[in-house]
Structure formats: C-alpha cells, structure tokens
C-alpha cells in the first residue's frame, strides 16, 4: 500500500525517474524520425518483455508522436504487450499445421492448468500464455514453446509433465 501511495504522489509515467541506460543507448542509435517507431518498440519489447508507460512517454517525446498514437500502434500489433510476461512464457502454436494435429487440445489443457486466459500472466508473475501462429517447426507439429525453447510432437501428457517440473522448481 505504501509503495502505491508514493507512486501516486509523483506521476504515473515516472517522469522524475531517470531514463534507463537501455533507452539512452537506444535513442543514441536512432534518428528521431516517425517511421522508426515500430523498430524501436520491437527493441524495447525484446529487452523489457513489455512496453511500459515510462517507455511510451519517453518515445513520445523523442519521436514527437502523441501518446495516443503510440498506444494505437502498440495495441495493433500482437507482438507488443503492455504488461510484463511471466517468468515462464509458454506459447502454443495454433498455426494450421499444428491445429490439424490437435494443438487446440494442448491449449485448452494449458488454460485449465494455469487458470488464466491467453495473453495473460498468472498473478504471481510466474507463467504467461500466448497463442502463436506458426513457429516454423511444422515437421514437429503440434508444438509449444517455453521461453523460446521448442517442445515438438507435443501431447497433453507432455505438457503436464513440463508444467509439473516448472511448478516444482518454483516451489
């Protein structure tokens, strides 16, 4: 509660906080031109795992683009997220090749196990789920990935096994 209060008394964009070294470095590599927006968002997403309000505000000032427009772009593209991903980011491929081989069943099981929806993160910040379209391993269909590592020829049992292990690791 205390933490929340101090934040509120300042500013929700963390204006008084200094720009992170990562953003400094990023801004030094790009010209302040509008068409660089998506490129820069991609880098921030890659580095931070999401696009914070602070980053949006900084970008808005750097590129001279209104915050609303930046929000519009972020929400348009599925790669960009406004909330941090979980420690274990699990993505189930729902491309056609995987779908035909039953990836929907794996997705359903995952949602059931973690009790969140696709695109969400568990309250403890440990797990997040994503629906992806074709990770390119159609020869191994159906596949899911955990933090980018591909698990091929997946079954519900295999998924359960992986999740059990991760949960055990986390206590």
């Amino acid at each position: 509660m205390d933490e929340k209060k101090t934040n509120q008394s300042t500013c929700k964009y963390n204006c008084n906080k200094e720009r992170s070294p990562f953003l400094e470095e990023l801004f030094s590599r790009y010209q302040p031109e509008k068409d660089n927006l998506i490129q820069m968002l991609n880098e921030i997403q890659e580095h931070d795992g999401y696009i914070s309000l602070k980053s949006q505000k900084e970008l808005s000032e750097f590129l001279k683009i209104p915050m609303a427009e930046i929000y519009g772009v972020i929400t348009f593209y599925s790669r960009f997220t406004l909330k941090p991903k979980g420690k274990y980011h699990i993505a189930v491929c729902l491309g056609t090749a995987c779908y035909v081989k039953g990836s929907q069943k794996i997705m359903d099981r995952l949602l059931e196990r973690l009790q969140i929806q696709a695109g969400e993160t568990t309250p403890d910040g440990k797990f997040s789920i994503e629906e992806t379209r074709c990770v390119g391993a159609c020869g191994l269909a159906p596949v899911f990935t955990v933090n980018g590592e591909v698990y091929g020829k997946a079954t519900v049992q295999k998924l359960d096994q992986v999740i059990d292990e991760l949960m055990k690791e986390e206590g």
Partner: protein
Amino acid sequence: MKTLEELHKIRAEKKKELDLRINTKADTREKHILVCHGTGCTSSKSAEILANFKRIIEEKKIENVRVIKTGCFGLCAKGPIVIIRPEDTFYAMVKPEDCEEIIQTHIIEGNRVERLLCKDIDGKKVNSLDELNFYKKQKRIALKNCGIINPEDIDEYIAFDGYLALEKVLKEMTPEEVIEVISNSGLRGRGGAGFPTGKKWALTRASEGKQKYVVCNADEGDPGAFMDRSILEGDPHSVLEAMAIAAYTIGANKGYIYVRAEYPIAVKRLEIAIKQAKEYGILGEHIFGTDFNFDIEIRLGAGAFVCGEETALLESIEGKRGQPRVKPPYPAQAGLWGKPTLINNVETYSNIAQIILKGANWYSSIGTKNSKGTKVFALGGNVNNIGLVEVPMGTTLREIVYDIGGGIPNGREFKAAQTGGPSGGCIPKEHLDTPIDYESLKEIGSMMGSGGLIVMDDTKCMVCLAKFYLEFTVSESCGKCTPCRIGTKRMLEILEKLCSGEGSEFDIYKLEKLAVNIQKASICGLGQSAPNPVISTLKYFREEFRQHAIQKECKALECKALSKITVIQDKCKGCGLCQKHCPVNAIEGKGREPRVINQDKCIKCGTCLTSCPFHAIGN
C-alpha cells in the same frame, strides 16, 4: 570493396572448391558435412550437432573435412538432417550424441552408419537424397541453393553464379530489356494474387517521380506456411540480387525488406547478407563501376497478418498501424511516402536472377499455359512427409500428397487439402487430380495463395475448420472497414452456434448470404477473401454442415457437444486401455468383456479415442 575482376576470381576458385556439393563424382579428397539450420531442424538441436561435429574433428585432428550450416533441405519431418557430400549420404533424425559415430564410421572408416540412414515411406533405406520419392517429382528453382550453400557466406552464393545476373543486367541490358525478359518468362506474383511480375515492373517504371522504392514482402503470415522463411534462411542473397535488379529496372535507389520479427534466424541471415554485400560493393554506390546506387534496409513486422497486404505493409514501414489503403492509387503510382513503389514477394524475387541468366524461354517452358515456372509449397498436416516442396506448375494435388508427401499416416483416409491459408479454400477428394495453377485452383473455389498446403484426414470436422479460420480472421481484421470487422465476427458466431449444436438450417443460409456480402464490400484482400474457407467448405461439405444443424451430429467427433462417443462392441477386445486412460472413470466393464461408456460421466475429451489400439471407439 571488390572489383569485378576480383569477384570473377572468387567465383572461379569457389566453383572448383564447392563442386562436390552438387557433383557426386567430384574430383576431390575433401568431404563436406552439411547440417540443416532451417527453423525446423534448429528447433530439434541442429546447432548442437554442428558444434559437436566441429569439436570432434578438431579433437581428432581430421583433415579435409568441413562442417557447414545450410538452409532447409525440405524434408522437415525427418529433421535434424545431416548430409555428407560428395557421396550425398542422407542421415535423418540425427541426435547430438550420434556425431561421434558418424565421424568414426563414415569419415574415418568409410562405411555408412546404417541405422541413421533415412528411410522412405515403404521402409526402404535410401543412400542418397535423389533416391527419395520426396525429391523425385520436385524441381528446384527458387530453392536452388537451399541446403547446398552456407547462407552466411557470400562467396558460396557467388560460386553458384550469384550476382552474375546483376552484372549482366547492369553491364549489358537496358531496363526495357529486363522488363521484356521478365514479362516473356510469364512469372506471376507468388504472394497469392498472381499479378504478372513483368507488368508490375513496367507500371512502376512508367510512373513519374525522382524517388522510387523497391520493397520485398517477407511478412509471411499464413499460419502453417514457411516458404519465404526457408528461402530467406537458406539463400538470402538471391533476394538481395533480385531487388537490386528490380531497382535498376524501375529507377529506384532504396529498398526495404519487411520481414516478420517472429523469424529471428531469417532476420539474422538477412542482416549478415546485407553487410557482406555492402562490403563487397554489391550494395551501395556505383555498383560494379556503374552509376547505379542501391541500398537495402530491413524493417521488422510485429505480428499482424494484415500487413501482408501490400498497402498495409507500406503503412507499417512508415511506422503506423498497418491498415490497408483504398486502391487506387496502387503502390506502383503512390506507395511508400506517396512515391512509386514496387512490392514483390520473397519467392517471386528468388526466381528473377535465374530467369535473367537462363532466359525467358527456359522459364516459360516449365509449367502450364497461364502459370509458368514452379511453386514452393509448405506441406503440412496429416501427411507423412511434412516439409518444403517445389514443383512445376501443373503438378496435381494427388502427386503432391501421395508421391511427394507419402500419403496419409496411421492408415487414415484423405478428406481435404487446404491451400491459400485463411484466404483460400478446401479441396476435396474428387478434385485430387486438378493440376495446380492459378486458374484451376480458383475454378474449384480455392486459390494458390502464398503456398501453405495443409492435408486433413477423415478425423477432421470441416465446420470446425471453417471456424478455426474465421477465428483467425476475426482476430486479425484491422477494423478499418465494417464488412470485415463486424461481418466476420457474425460469421464466427454462427459457426460457433453450429458447432455447439444450437444452429439451424436457417443459419447456414445466413452464413452464405453474409459471406457473399463480405466478399463484395470489404476494402482489402484480407476481408474480400475472409469468407473463402466457409464458402468452399460449404460447397464441398454441405452435408456435414447440415448434420451439425439438423441431426445435431458431428461424425468426425470433433465438436464435443455433438458427438456421442461409444465403444463399437464387436471391435472391442476388452484390453482396458481406454479405461486406464479415461480421466473421469466413465468407462465401465471388466476382464475381457467389451467396455461401455457411461454417457452421464463422459466429458468427451477423446482420450479413449486416441488410446484405443483397435479403432474400436466411434459414434
């Protein structure tokens, strides 16, 4: 910077050195171990295999052996793949721990490692790539270098006549002559719509303006398609070369490659390729000592299917939401930042250099009357040989599915094949002998599309499939125009009703009516083609829709609400496997007696269906 003479020298030297890659009788003591580094094989640890080979060779101080990473060999189902040349030995499903044995038995002792040899569908072991049925009916033009060269080494591309076409164009041809060759070759856009490439180039050339752009569309969004990615991963320079030729032809000096950020390997190899080409002076100013300047930049997409539509892609390069523009004006007149812009797809570009070198007549001799050349397909789904295939236009679907693809696994029946992804349609059994080209696919209600080809067996419900594609379009609709934004959503709702057993015959009628309206009224290709999966499944599988609506029955057992799972009593051997696997203990019976499913308890999860070894569970 390299002068032309230096490039010629590199080509001559490397050509000799790399002869063993394409010639099994090459006169050399060297051996090259090629390890596939496409996305498919990389997912199953081919990088570790490569590292292991390198380590062992170094430890054992073996000479005359090189380990090379290559692009996709095509037969992804057998990955990770290792090929040893010049003898062309094909090892399949290699594990990192197998490297030791391959080096010892094959390289040192000179014998094949029998247990790792690739097996064909009939179980016969094959010694070399060419013996596989998978490759027999293929013809590789766009994929010519994939699996043969190291995509991260420009010298290897140069060795196989790389950048020779660009040299020919810059030194010997006028832009008009280039357009004539491309037009006469009959090449059409491989992104899906099939617009004649030569005509597109001529239109962009004719547009007035000092500043023009060349764009490569590598935003391959069709789920289950990986043709463009494989080309970029296996032969990135072929795209750069073609873009330079296009730029010279239309009078542009700047190019963009718009590629999905979800393709990290392709992006990395493109970056390396561009850097190397710049170092050699093949990109940059005064290319090959002429007045022609050209530079290429990469732009990353961020996961929006609609950006594969050319005008939406342009918006995205400009840093905006990827919403399509109203056409006309076409990009050839007003594209990127309002300037004339040429947009072609990756696969289209990868044909260009060879058309220039071998001539229009050579290219137009391949294929059918109106569709020339070859087409790359990503073959996936319920088929034995999943992978990347390139066939001449006019090859029939039956040849692709049965001869190349090796048929349907698990003794199942072919039900339908889907081409063109969310914009295409389903092709049923009775059209298996249709020759694949732009016109005949359109005639039977599907489309060429970018090249995804998904095979489905008889366990797939067509209403569910239509629903699957509609879910995709609904989430990918950009929201700009009403028919697509709201219409597809309404279609999806009707399909959900049908799948949950709440639909009626009137719903099928409404579905058809909506589909036609959306096709006619949407702004861009995504909306206009969004109803296609529904229209084509309705055309060929109407009976299945009616079963869902009237009899409330799903014969494929995919729609849970409509399927009643039972044990076929005379097939059941009483093994009890289903009972063991059932998560809710709904299966009753003991000993050797046939089992019975308690319908009150059954949650229709289908676990018994997959666990029964005797196919004794059905409805």
